[in-house]
């Protein structure tokens, strides 16, 4: 198991290293001179000032040197300073990252809490009206774009009913964005759980468990659920990355003060150090979650744990 996890951690580190290279090349991927574009809208910047910014970003050096400089600072925990405001990028991101993680975790919690039981119920009632109805709802949930669902929830619960605040950063403010992000993912989990459970229920070992005379509830809980949840756990890892991405849209709808909203602002302002920092942080979070999921998988599946 340790060998398995060691391999995963090494692969994760490799992924992050590739990201650092892409992040350095990013500035050059945009056509035109990045510093010129950055200051295109502001008047009164002198050529000296532009030259100063270019030097501070290291853009006057060759690309490999730029990369080495970037890595040198990165390994010291320095992600540079924002162009607007000159604050350390790391500080700006760390300030907002907890908000985004909170949103993504809350959404994941909702997605699993709703999706897995629905999928389980549908599998248990396979082929009945309950199953069909649940799956139609699930397809509707998957088809619904975040921004639309978010706006609808906002309209009904905040504006019409007035139960929840429209925007802000309190606990009550978390409900609507987390629901928006969670509901469509719940639909994905419901469908996956259903197909996985149906697959497991037809296995010989489930029939054997019944043949031993175990009560149905025990067979479902002990023999079906655990094996059936393995693909769902894998999906959790993948979906978490998508939820972080989805957070960018949702945070903007609900003015949730997370890194997603910050990233959109940074992109509009062409704040390259901030964008680079955001991408890097994002990739670290996604890789970390993937490793956690792999560890969880090993706990659930003895075939991995004991190999």
């Amino acid at each position: 198991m340790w060998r398995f996890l060691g391999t995963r951690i090494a692969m994760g580190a490799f992924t992050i290293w590739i990201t650092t290279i892409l992040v350095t090349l990013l500035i050059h991927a945009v056509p035109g001179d990045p510093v010129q574009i950055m200051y295109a809208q502001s008047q009164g910047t002198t050529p000296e000032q532009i030259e100063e910014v270019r030097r501070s970003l290291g853009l006057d050096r060759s690309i490999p040197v730029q990369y080495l400089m970037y890595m040198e600072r990165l390994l010291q925990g320095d992600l540079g300073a924002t162009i607007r405001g000159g604050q350390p990028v790391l500080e700006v991101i760390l300030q907002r990252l907890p908000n985004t993680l909170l949103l993504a975790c809350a959404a994941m919690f909702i997605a699993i809490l709703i999706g897995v039981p629905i999928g389980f119920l549908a599998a248990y009632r396979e082929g009945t009206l309950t199953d069909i109805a649940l799956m139609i709802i699930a397809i509707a949930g998957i088809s619904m774009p975040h921004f639309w669902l978010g706006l609808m929830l906002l309209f009904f619960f905040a504006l019409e009913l007035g139960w929840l605040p429209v925007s802000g950063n309190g606990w009550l403010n978390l409900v609507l964005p987390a629901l928006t992000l969670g509901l469509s993912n719940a639909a994905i989990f419901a469908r996956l759980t259903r197909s996985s459970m149906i697959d497991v229920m037809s296995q010989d070992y489930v029939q054997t468990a019944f043949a031993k005379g175990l009560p149905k509830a025990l067979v479902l809980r002990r023999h079906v659920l655990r094996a059936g949840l393995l693909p769902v756990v894998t999906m959790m890892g993948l979906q978490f990355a998508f939820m972080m991405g989805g957070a960018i849209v949702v945070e903007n709808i609900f003015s949730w003060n997370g890194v997603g909203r910050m990233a959109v602002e940074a992109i509009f302002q062409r704040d390259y150090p901030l964008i680079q920092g955001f991408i890097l942080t994002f990739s670290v979070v996604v890789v970390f979650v993937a490793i956690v999921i792999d560890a969880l998988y090993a706990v659930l599946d003895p075939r991995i744990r004991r190999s």
Partner: protein
Amino acid sequence: MSALLSVKDLSVSLGGKTLVDGISFDLAPGEVLSIVGESGSGKSMTAKALMGLLPPKANATGTAMFDGANLLAPDTKTPRGTGIGLIFQEPMTALTPVLTIGMQLTEALVSHELCSKDEARSRAIDMLDRVGIPVPATRMRQYPHELSGGMRQRVVIAMMMLLGPRVLIADEPTTALDVTVQAQILDLLKEIVSETQIGLILITHDMGVVAEMADHVLVMKAGKAEELGPVADLFALPVAAYTRDLLDAVPRIDAVSTRAEPETETLLSVRNITKTFQTRGALFKSGAAHRALDDVSLEVRRGETLALVGESGSGKTTLGRVIARLTAADAGQVLLEDTDLTCLAGRDLQARRRAVQMVFQDPYASLDPRQTVGRTIAEPMIIHDTLTKAERTQRVESLLGKVGLGADMARRYPHEFSGGQRQRIAIARAMAARPTLVIADEPTSALDVSIQARVLDLLEGLKQSEDLTMLFISHDLAVVRQIADRVAVMRNGRILELGPASALFAAPKHPYTRALIDVAPVPDPTRKRGKRPVLQGDYPTGPLKEVDAGHWVAG
């Protein structure tokens, strides 16, 4: 003696189709009743109906009296586990992969409130010991994937016997196991029956297993009972025509070979082939090496059928794949008419490939489901020949005719055919390349016995008419006895014995060959086998020595 289980007019229907049609039988304590039939005969459905494990939409009628209650009545709660136990065919999937052996053994005892948790544990350990599992206390903490197939089947048997059932239903319990392991499991079941006086319903398609195990036999076909009677009568004087056909179709390991001595010209020469598979290790760490073929040499003569025989893991399939260049060998040569196939590449290899064609075990997996049968058969001609479309169509039709199928079937897709028909198509596809050597890897082991007989006849006929040489890979000695001129016995990547089929079966020289022949079930209830030889022992695996003309044995 009064019957333990008395079944009358059992019928099962599902979606308007009758799957089991009016089956009746009695089962006495200490009796083994075999239900025999081919796939689709309804034998497994009968078992499921008795267990109350039918699919939700299936409907069972009739009566099955057990312990004063009718198991088929809707308000009867089937005494699953405690009254009737069930063992499935595939031990690899019959245990839940994510739970320990101990948990799976004890949970039903605890759930039925037969004893406390601690007592369940000690009973489970005793039972594991009883079914012949070494170090049972350690096994309790292990997971199914850490045990071999034979061990798992013992665990399943222990699991069912712990609950003290009075009837045990075993659905093809040894079909997925190697012949030596099968012998051990059958012995175990026999001991259990005679010791505990339970009634055993043994569902099987293997007449050899029936002859060895059963007291009474029920022959089923298409849901109906064809014949029911004592095992000796059924084998000696089968009444139903179907029973006679079934018995005739069974290949006999004790049959007398009437095969002519093959020519002596060498077609294929395998020299010192070695192949090691590397299991995947972690990053910066190499995995374990598994030697699948260990310095294997043999010659195949033109026009003969050479059988490669062995249990799983013996290397027989790997050797076939190395000869067909589907797997690259680590060292050694494969000379086909003096061309070394192992060092060919590119265009030369492709041109040479036509000479060696394969027929695989599972015809459900070896045909592309998205291509018509005609296109599948035509493909080798498109690659190797310059034929016009009309000529190709004509040849596809004539090939279909040769394998006993209609020319009009070329436009259909594989899923429209039965297993036996598909295997015929796979054979036609191999023939389309006009090969000199056909490698048939377990071509009939996925097929019913009556269909197996016909496919074997077809291969034999084609071999004669098309002037073929055949390498026949099989685990089934009886089939090999019927089709092979010469036999090579393999184990752990080594050839242990190689010789003419008649000599090898009549007087096996290597102890492993002798053991394999001894443990194979023979479809003859009058031939009682003695105590089984122990198979775990070390066998001589040294270089082959010629003990008789053309008969080689590892020293």
